[in-house]
């Protein structure tokens, strides 16, 4: 109870600080013009930290960090892609073009951008529906990440933690502005930076240095009793610092779901893509690459290293592997490590780090969901603006939030990383080919874009429902229809992530259909590409 009291005080102080920063920023810049003038003097740190804080959620830290406790340092390939694709390629190649083209088209949301580029209202409401539904799952796993931490570290009942955190986020969203103010995002990013930096230094300090700690992890596979890793070894596990056997189920999950799904899917995340349109100049993007790269390295790199090395720590101290300590729920590995290895004050600091990570991500998600429902679906279908759209957007956000909490109660353990991957892989299948061609290929047609969008989405959903073991077994639809757990049960197919199948199909379909159908008019292309690529 004492812990709960201290936590409440810490959270209140944190919220007050966040509110204060938001208020000061608001007092300073009341109108949009002020915003721009102030923005021209904005430190590039602000843009990068704000983007990074939105990108990295509790799912990345708690969920994927815990997953690294199982899969080991091979997960660092995801950090590699997060920086190369999620920062470098996203900012330098996608960001600048998105910014210019988005302005040429007067698009305010990601679906609207695609819809105006290809001159199709269908693209707008179809994308809106995919985003609205899929994001509920993502919001749910972000909430679970925070609640698991509160449960494990601070001994707060999981269900109470889930509801309390949802209420805090809802209050923040209602009173603090629906989308994180850039300065509060940056404040949250800074807190995340400090929290993760301390954690990285601490784990290598505790385990005697970088080389020593990694070496101990390398040796661990030979010192643990064989039965402790027997189950994983049967599916391809070879150690925490070696890649799984090529082509094994363990390898496919690591490479296709965890690394590729999220590593590539980040390019077509609607809440991140729209951010490029709010950047003042290409110079700001150039500068943000520097800060963003370091930020992501410290966020996901630390989470994965700590997750993997927690095995050494727990084996040295209590003779168990991380997954045994948390009784099989990898979502609890990072919280369990912090509880055992770090001082109590750090647990509170880390709670604030996670709150920051969750709030900055959730506020952007909720904003994207609101605009998807109000503007992209309702207004596009009814052709009316304003009026009822206000209520549709607000009601939609409330419903989405409630569903996210309910899903937090019913989703199984070990869900955070997988749930995040599913969302990333659906968005990649649906949007990535169309989005990349929108920016880089004038020959892509309306019919091509629509075909890629619809087929990518359908193939992705089909694979999730009928073939991908983790989701097909949970849903049980294929079991009810055929009596089998999935359509093809022979390896590797049940562990092959949907993105491996759906993304190439979507690309091919988009290209083939584009080549066969009528090209967009020259005037339209000129309007879209004016000044793009300079």
């Amino acid at each position, binding site marked *: 109870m004492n812990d709960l009291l201290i936590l409440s005080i810490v959270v209140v102080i944190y919220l007050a600080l966040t509110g204060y920063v938001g208020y000061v920023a608001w007092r300073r810049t009341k109108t949009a013009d002020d915003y721009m003038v102030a923005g021209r003097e904005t430190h590039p740190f602000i843009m990068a930290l704000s983007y990074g804080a939105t990108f990295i959620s509790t799912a990345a830290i708690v969920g994927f960090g815990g997953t690294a406790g199982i899969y080991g340092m091979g997960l660092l390939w995801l950090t590699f892609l997060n920086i190369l694709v999620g920062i470098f390629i996203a900012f330098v190649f996608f960001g600048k073009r998105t910014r210019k083209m988005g302005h040429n088209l007067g698009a305010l949301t990601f679906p609207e951008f695609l819809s105006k580029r290809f001159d199709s209202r269908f693209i707008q409401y179809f994308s809106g529906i995919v985003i609205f539904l899929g994001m509920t799952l993502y919001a749910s796993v972000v909430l679970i990440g925070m609640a698991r931490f509160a449960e494990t570290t601070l001994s707060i009942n999981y269900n109470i933690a889930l509801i309390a955190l949802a209420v805090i986020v809802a209050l923040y969203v209602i009173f603090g502005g629906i989308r994180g103010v850039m300065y509060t995002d940056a404040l949250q990013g800074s807190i995340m930076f400090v929290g993760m930096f301390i954690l990285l230094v601490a784990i290598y300090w505790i385990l005697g240095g970088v080389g020593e700690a990694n070496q101990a992890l390398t040796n661990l596979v030979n010192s643990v009793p064989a039965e402790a890793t027997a189950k994983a070894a049967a599916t391809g596990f070879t150690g925490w610092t070696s890649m799984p056997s090529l082509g094994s189920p363990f390898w496919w999950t690591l490479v296709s779901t965890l690394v590729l799904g999220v590593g590539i899917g980040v390019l077509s995340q609607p809440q991140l893509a729209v951010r490029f349109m709010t950047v003042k*100049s290409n110079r700001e993007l150039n500068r943000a690459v520097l800060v963003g790269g370091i930020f992501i390295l410290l966020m996901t790199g630390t989470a994965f290293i700590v997750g993997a090395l927690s095995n050494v720590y727990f084996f040295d101290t209590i003779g168990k592997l991380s997954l045994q300590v948390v009784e099989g729920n990898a979502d609890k590995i990072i919280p369990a490590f912090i509880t055992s290895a770090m001082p109590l004050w750090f647990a509170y600091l880390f709670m604030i780090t996670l709150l920051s990570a969750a709030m900055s991500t959730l506020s952007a998600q909720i904003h994207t969901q609101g605009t998807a429902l109000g503007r992209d679906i309702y207004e596009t279908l009814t052709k009316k603006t304003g009026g009822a759209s206000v209520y549709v957007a607000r009601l939609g956000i409330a419903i989405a939030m409630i569903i996210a909490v309910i899903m937090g109660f019913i989703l199984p353990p070990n869900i955070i990383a997988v749930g995040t991957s599913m969302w990333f892989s659906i968005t990649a299948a649906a949007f990535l080919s169309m989005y990349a061609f929108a920016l880089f290929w004038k020959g892509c047609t309306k019919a091509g874009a629509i075909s890629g969008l619809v087929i990518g989405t359908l193939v992705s959903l089909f694979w999730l429902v009928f073939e991908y073991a983790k989701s097909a077994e949970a849903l049980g639809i294929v079991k009810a229809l055929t009596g089998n757990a999935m359509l093809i049960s022979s390896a590797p197919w049940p562990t092959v992530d949907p993105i491996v199948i759906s993304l190439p199909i979507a690309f091919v379909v988009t290209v083939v259909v584009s080549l066969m159908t009528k090209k967009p008019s020259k005037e339209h292309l000129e309007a879209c590409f004016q000044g793009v690529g300079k």
Partner: protein
Amino acid sequence: MVLGIDDPWIWGAYVGCILVTLLCVVYGILNWNKGGEDEEEQVKEELNWHKKEKDMEEKELGLWDEHDA
């Protein structure tokens, strides 16, 4: 053996993360002042976009974004 790790696929990822971060740092430094040549125009576009987004949020969606800064 690099950094206590035998498998080149793993220390490759470890070192790769650091190298790709250095790429970002070097790119950021080399281009620190580039991309702002037509800043006046870029800022005007951005201002226009921001106004439209604010209108959408307030008038069409009723979202509470009253102090975006």
